[in-house]
């Protein structure tokens, strides 16, 4: 589907660039940077010249069967438009939702777990708790990602401190391999007891599995999360394994395509923590990317909001399949180590995001007279009915088309939206079963999807004690600008920000992100700080960081290392991370200060060291931000009839490309641009900010 015909480029040469004074080009500043975000429905590409800030954008439909094809199509288009050679590309940055969607839709590889004999049900038992916030009478324990029928035991035992108590019985591994063959699995996780202290057995099992089952993706727990506590480690390992085949073939394809296109630049992927990392890291631990795409969007949203002077924002990224929602207070993106993907805890550092299955492709369903919308999605294939690609089920996009809120074509006329198909789908799927008019059905669908998103926004705001009315809603993703105002009205939010290129905001985030990696060692036995040990371990970690810097090609001047010590009072179960202050005494003082500041007290107890960590980052040259030219007086390019709840209205349509800084408009209005359509309902007004964002406010 994604032939060049169905794609388009948007040269932003009509915008003027003002590189900030004093911006020092880094040694490879002449290299171009490409940022690619592959969503469920569209693939967005931004090519940027970091030294001038000049950017070229391309958008092309995603092709789920081979996302790399759209990836490359987009990159080629952008290069052509910029009249640049592939060799000029210095970095390829990429954010992806592949892993997230696989977990949320339970479409990961068919996976199995190999564990220590006697402990097959660790996953079923979990932490044996009824979660604190649920109701014990109504709670149903979620089905595990791998049922116990696919959990195999091998005879071996490592004990405390990594001591081998029982040799690995390779015959039992052979038996497990036979069972795995019968189970026809695509991925296997290996998580053995105490492997975090001694990975030898685990690595040997993984090696035997890889040799015997070359087509099966194998993950050992110590490759992903080498920490104590078997349940959480097993779960993370399984999730990693189940997305591994998908991600590995995906990254492999991307690299092949890049090579075909003569792009030799390294491929960097966005991680859940808002930093990027190389393909090798990601292949080994694809679970690090579960929030890759969403994290990129949040980083991008923070940047565009900051350019308008907003630090308190709620970000709503609505794509084809899902909506990702996050809250940023004071410009700080909060990271969590206790993230959750779907129903599962995932103990990897990630941006604090809530994801729900609500997007433009979400399918409406009527069962027993009840209308629901999502989480099932038509995705890019077949896509909404109005795409005319064979989709017959009514989607949210179809509802927008029926109400006149979307134009007849997308992507600057290269993709038609067929209203009649949308009407048929809604009539058959929703209106007739419920005895409604098509218009009522469409409006009902939108009310439900908005309501679902309001629920998720409440989770990040109200449920955490924040009043959404104190925040600006940043709406982006292909479908975000259609819903921004209606969501805000439901929440009492007064201000909405629509970024310059809402469909490719993830690309903005990719361009703004630094390379990030963490290297840590947990001491075999925690105890008082021993400076000799600390010096030795930091030296080892620094070596690891150095090889990583080299692997990632980070110039000396751009390397940053933060030495962190994780300390606790003897007996505590959680550590506090404090910067290593150079010696034991000063670091202990730092710890006491931090404990007092955070918890309000200190204890007269021994302070013990648990883990040492180096947080390495490779600083990327900050992108130069373009500024819009002055207002030219916005004129409507067309008028559309839109069915609002208040009635049928003639609505002016503006071309966003023609706006200058300071242009203003009042609702109802529709603003079209290549990658998104913004709907401004009656009662709202808007203004164009010099950074290119639209600022909408209630009259």
């Amino acid at each position: 589907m994604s032939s060049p015909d169905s794609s388009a480029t948007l040269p932003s040469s009509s915008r003027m660039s003002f590189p900030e004074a004093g911006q020092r080009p880094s040694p490879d500043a002449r290299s171009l940077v490409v940022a690619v975000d592959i969503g469920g429905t569209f693939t967005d590409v931004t090519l940027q010249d970091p030294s001038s800030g000049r950017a070229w954008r391309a958008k092309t439909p995603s092709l789920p069967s081979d996302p790399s094809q759209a990836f490359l199509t987009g990159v080629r288009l952008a290069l052509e438009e910029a009249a640049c050679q592939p060799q000029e590309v210095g970095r390829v940055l990429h954010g992806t939702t592949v892993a997230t969607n696989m977990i949320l839709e339970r479409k990961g590889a068919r996976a199995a777990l190999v564990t220590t004999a006697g402990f097959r049900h660790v996953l079923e038992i979990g932490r044996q708790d009824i979660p604190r916030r649920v109701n014990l009478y109504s709670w149903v324990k979620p089905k595990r990602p791998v049922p116990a029928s696919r959990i195999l035991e091998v005879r071996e035992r490592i004990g405390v401190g990594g001591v081998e108590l029982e040799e690995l019985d390779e015959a039992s591994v052979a038996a497990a391999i036979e069972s795995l063959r019968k189970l026809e699995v695509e991925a296997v996780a290996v998580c053995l007891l105490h492997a975090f202290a001694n990975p030898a057995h685990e690595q040997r099992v993984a090696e035997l599995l890889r040799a015997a089952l070359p087509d099966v993706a194998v993950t050992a727990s110590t490759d992903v999360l080498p920490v104590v506590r078997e349940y959480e480690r097993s779960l993370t390992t399984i999730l990693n394994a189940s997305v591994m085949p998908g991600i590995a073939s995906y990254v492999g394809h991307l690299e092949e395509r890049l090579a075909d296109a003569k792009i030799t630049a390294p491929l960097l992927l966005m991680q859940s923590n808002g930093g990027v990392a190389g393909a090798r890291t990601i292949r080994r631990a694809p679970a690090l990317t579960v929030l890759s795409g969403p994290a990129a969007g949040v980083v991008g949203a923070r940047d565009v909001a900051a350019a308008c002077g907003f630090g308190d924002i709620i970000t709503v990224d609505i794509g084809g399949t899902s909506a990702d929602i996050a809250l940023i207070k004071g410009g700080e993106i909060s990271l969590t180590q206790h993230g959750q993907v779907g129903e599962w805890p995932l103990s990897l550092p990630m941006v604090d995001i809530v994801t729900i299955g609500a997007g433009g492709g979400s399918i409406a369903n009527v069962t027993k007279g009840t209308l629901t919308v999502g989480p099932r999605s038509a995705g890019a294939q077949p896509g909404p009915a109005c795409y005319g690609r064979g989709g017959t089920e009514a989607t949210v996009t179809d509802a927008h088309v029926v109400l006149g809120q979307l134009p007849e074509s997308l992507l600057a006329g290269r993709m038609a939206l067929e209203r009649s198909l949308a009407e048929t789908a809604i009539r058959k799927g929703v209106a007739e079963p419920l005895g409604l008019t098509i218009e009522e059905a469409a409006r009902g669908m939108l009310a439900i999807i908005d309501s679902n998103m309001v629920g998720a926004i409440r989770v990040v705001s109200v449920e955490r004690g924040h009043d959404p009315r104190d925040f600006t809603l940043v709406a982006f993703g292909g479908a975000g600008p259609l819903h921004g105002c209606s969501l805000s009205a439901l929440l009492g939010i007064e201000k909405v920000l629509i970024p310059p290129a809402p469909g490719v905001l993830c690309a903005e985030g990719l361009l703004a992100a630094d390379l990030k990696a963490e290297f840590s060692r947990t001491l075999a036995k925690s105890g008082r700080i021993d400076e000799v040990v600390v010096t030795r371990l930091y030296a080892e970690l620094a070596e690891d960081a150095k090889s990583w810097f080299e692997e990632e090609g980070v110039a000396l001047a751009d390397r940053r290392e933060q030495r962190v010590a994780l300390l606790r009072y003897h007996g505590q179960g959680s550590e506090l991370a404090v910067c290593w202050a150079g010696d034991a005494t000063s670091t202990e003082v730092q710890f006491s200060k931090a404990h007092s500041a955070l918890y309000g007290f200190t204890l007269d107890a021994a302070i013990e060291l648990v883990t040492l960590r180096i947080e390495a980052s490779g600083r990327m040259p900050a992108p130069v931000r373009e500024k819009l030219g002055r207002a030219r007086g916005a004129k409507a390019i067309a008028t559309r009839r839109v069915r609002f709840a208040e009635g049928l209205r003639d609505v002016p349509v503006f071309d966003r490309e023609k706006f200058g800084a300071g242009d203003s408009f009042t609702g109802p209005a529709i603003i079209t641009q290549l990658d998104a359509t913004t709907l401004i309902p009656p009662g709202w007004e808007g203004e164009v900010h010099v950074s290119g964002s639209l600022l909408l406010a209630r009259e």
Partner: protein
Amino acid sequence: MLRSIEDEAKPAADASSKKQAAAGVCDPVTLEILRGAIRAVQAEMEALIERTAISAFIREKKDFYTSLFDADGVMAVGSNMPVFGDMSGSVFKRFPPEAMRPGDLYWYSDCYESTGAVSHSNDQVLIAPVFHQGRRCAFVMSWAHFADIGGMRAGSISPDATDIFQEGIIVPATKLIDGGCVNEAVLEMFHRNSRFPEQSRGDMRALMASVELGVKRVDEILIRFGAAVVEDGLRQLLERTRRLVRERLAETFPYGTHRFTDAIDSDGHGNGPYRMRFALTRERGAKGEDRFVLDASGSDDQSPGPVNFLMNPGVPGMALGLYYLGGDPGQVCNAGGPQALDEVVLREGSLLAPRFPAPLGMRGLTMMRVLAALMGLVNVASGKGPAAHSAYVITLMRGTFTDEKGEKQPFLLSDGIGVGYGARPYADGIDAVYFVAQENYPVEFVELGYPVRLTHYGIARDSGGPGRYRGGCGIVREYEILADDAILAVRIDGVTNPPWGIAGGMSGGAGRAVVNPGTERERALRPLSDGNRLTRGDTLRIETGGGGGHGHPFDRPAEDVLEDVLSGFVSEKAAAKLYGVVIAAEKVDAAATAALRRKRPQVRAFHRNEYVDVLA
């Protein structure tokens, strides 16, 4: 919840809401934000306890809770705990709220003085008033189980106890901080009574800090919303729960008296079974309004052993309330539940209202059975409640081990082990859980911290009561003893009176404790017993019970039974015998299954070891 914000967002946004706020009315949107803000305070207080406490019982098992009370000490936002009653009353008896000052902190663990607000002495309760502009507006509470507070054996609770003085130090309501000045002497006295004073010290600091944090955060809420709006909001939260629970009670219980009897096996001293008899009467009051009266006075007399459950009169309403609130996260478990019952009748000297100084330490098994019996009442009246669950199991292992330096060290391992919960009319019972919020000691954790090695940790096969919906399964946990010497207490109930099944569902399997299983030295332990000696090299195997099933087992889809068999939850033998499903070569034998299922056994209302119409 979603609908409410859609309907109500508009009035909130306009100017009239600001006028309402001035008049002290909390509008519906502000109410939801207030509720969320209080939940956030709770989460922060809980996180502080978890991250800073020292004992594994608190930081790893997470036996702690927090709540917020209104200006009169009525619980407005609790935890989802069905066994909370009136938490503040015993403080007020000694310290009238009018005399309280900012910076005060109150403390107690006295079961009898608090009428069972805490029901064994290990639970320490800290409560502090929150003042705003000189006015008392709220209270915050943190509660945690302290691992050792003295008493006859390490861990303080023991099946051997015969009065409460053997169960550790008792703290009557005490002013721990007086206007900012800490009574260090009373703290020292408390810690001196613990076998593990460092844990006691660290845990108490954590608990005090969490209350301090709660006071600060609630103060911020008061500043943000105004005292009048908060007061009105808390009132609404209470009223909302109370109204909802009363509506649901009326839907469940026709006018008249509904009775249910359940039993625990023994008190560990050779007595039992003990029956608890509940009667719920719905009648019309003087003005024709509904009156709901819960009468437990027919329960058996108190026991010499420590299985007495000193039940705060608020508990039945809290438990029924939580059941009725269901899975809606917008609802709040609070004193609205207890307030929904007009009267709770208890008989002094009975198992549920024992006389001082009867021992209480093992009350957990009775408490869990009370919760099942309350669901029995619901089932008798409407048939929509869950089947019975097992009582969670606890083992206390105390002894000495030799450390790396060759020195003998004492240790205490209080290991809580999950059980199976009852099947619901719409879902299987929960497999392998302990109780609300309380977590296990992971295998790796327990081996790092204690002189044991686990040899098996898994699902207890066939422990879930068979049914269309299967009861949850219990757990097998097997330890190799690395300690030099240890004395073990074990608490398992529901062996002779297993958790009942309903609507054709069968009772759950029973638990057991056995030392050195499968060897010549094998010996079974009494399910509720102490003084069991273990030495290095012994193997201790604990199996816990399951929950009752719901619906006829022959109606369970054969594929579900197959998955249970392949996953080790149900044996092939039980699949054929109890579910009528024949499994051969890891597949369902459809023909043989159909043949078996034609011989469908007759069932009756309840099942406990056998089908019966009424449990007695």
